[in-house]
């Protein structure tokens, strides 16, 4: 039986209630809109890249606790990273949330609180929406989708 407390951990509930970097950036170097047609979750991600470094990142939108917390944690995690590092972190995060729950995964620090979604397959898309949007923003696509 899947344990709910693995999904709704304190850290996630806190980031849902008080999302970090929940704002816009005026004329950012990169921007993308993420949309999950399944549940209607929508988020706008603003990224400021200077040189090859993400100097600022922010988001706005409406979504469930998992997608909002994931976006919040992601913005904290990638701020200060190079674009290459952020892309690599996308791959590592994606691997963690899509690995079956009975298999070990690497420790991603704070981001690891989202590993609980593995027990709730329909919620994996919620956790990855922000990351797909980041990837799209960095590739300068206008719209990301979890489909």
């Amino acid at each position, binding site marked *: *039986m*899947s344990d*709910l407390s693995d*999904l*709704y951990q304190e850290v996630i*509930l806190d980031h*849902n209630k008080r999302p970090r970097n929940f704002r816009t950036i005026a004329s950012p170097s990169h921007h993308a809109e993420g949309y999950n047609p*399944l*549940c*209607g*979750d*929508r988020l706008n991600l603003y990224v400021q890249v200077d040189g090859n470094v993400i100097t600022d990142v922010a988001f706005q939108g*409406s*979504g*469930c*606790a*998992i997608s*909002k917390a994931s976006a919040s944690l992601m913005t904290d995690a990638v701020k200060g990273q190079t674009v290459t590092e952020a892309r690599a972190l996308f791959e590592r995060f994606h691997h963690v949330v899509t690995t079956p729950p009975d298999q070990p995964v690497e420790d991603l620090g704070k981001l690891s609180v989202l590993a609980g979604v593995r027990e*709730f397959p*329909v*919620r994996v898309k*919620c956790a990855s929406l922000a990351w797909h949007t980041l990837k799209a923003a960095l590739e300068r696509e206008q719209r990301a989708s979890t489909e």
Partner: protein
Amino acid sequence: MTPSAPSATTDARIGFDVQKVRRDFPILAERVHGKPLVYLDSANTSQKPQAVLDAMDEYYRHANANIHRATHLLSERATALYEGARAKAATFINAPDPKTIVLTKGTTDGINLVAQSYGRSVLKPGDEVVLSWLEHHSNIVPWQLVCEQTGARLRVVPINDAGEVDIDQYASMLSARTRIVAIGHVSNALGTINPVREIIEQAHARGAVVLIDGAQAIPHLAVDVQALDCDFYVFSSHKMFGPTGVGVLYGRQSLLEAMPPYQGGGDMIASVTFEKTCYNVVPYKFEAGTPNIAGVAGFGAAVDYLMGIDRAAALAHEDDVLAYATTRVREIPGARIFGEAKHKTGVLSFLLEGVHPHDAGTILDNEGVAVRTGQHCAQPVMDRFGITATIRASLAIYNTREEIDVLVRALERVRGVFA
């Protein structure tokens, strides 16, 4: 005031034995996440009684063959089951003749058939198709497609804050340009029962043809297509305790006969040469290819099942459970109900303050309670209320007040997590 009488009392008063009905549906004994299943997602798809499961099993064990074409006994049995289901469907909705019953893949298929066959052949640039704001995407997109193809345009009748179609606005939208009115009998997102009789009468007065999307009405209301005087009535088997992949399009015979085929293939033809093909008569003209025979056999059993129960008593029972659910959910602090039409059936759509429906859905599921969360394929309805999603508890004849109590306790748990 909280209605607190247990279901047994209510059931005795209205003469409906819900426990007996529950025993007909084997899946209702299922446990999910270690808890008894509380299935409140019947507007999405209903559960199936043993009789339906048996009919499909029997078909494959004793009658599996293709219909309408072979001379052997199994084919005769299969054809009898298939045509028998058509005749049952005709009786079920009081259609004048089984010929007016086209067996489809479902409601969506039926609407697309009418849009592409009837709509595409009659619509001209400047003509209008009238829908309501309540429609399911499947009663919007097929009309958008045919409007793009023909140069006709869509008119959308607004709804009020209670989720009721504005009948005055509807009347003022009808004109000599209105060719087709396509409207849901019951809203899947809010449960509103539309005054379809009145809607049809007004459309006919303007010379328009009316399609009623009955997907959400058919499991709850007794439907009489002749009394309604609709031109087309479409519904799905899977919403009325039958299998998925089967549906019905009732059409006025004169219209069906004048309509061009929708898809070409076997069974829909009378003769084929490379020079010319003659089409089969209705309804076969619209049934190309080998259909879902086992599904149709199951659908026939579902019709028998519904005709074998007291529908008025079943509806009174459902109304009682819906009223109880509405009262109980309204009592929850921070709960907001969407869709408070005077005439409603089967659906309670709501939100809890500070909780995204998707999170509520996961926690409810963990408590054994199956609901749908999201936009319910009715994005315009969500937009109308300025929201992106709701929690939707939807009912069928087998639900009880006790299950609503489980839902309410589970919603308390949801509030606890997000307090």
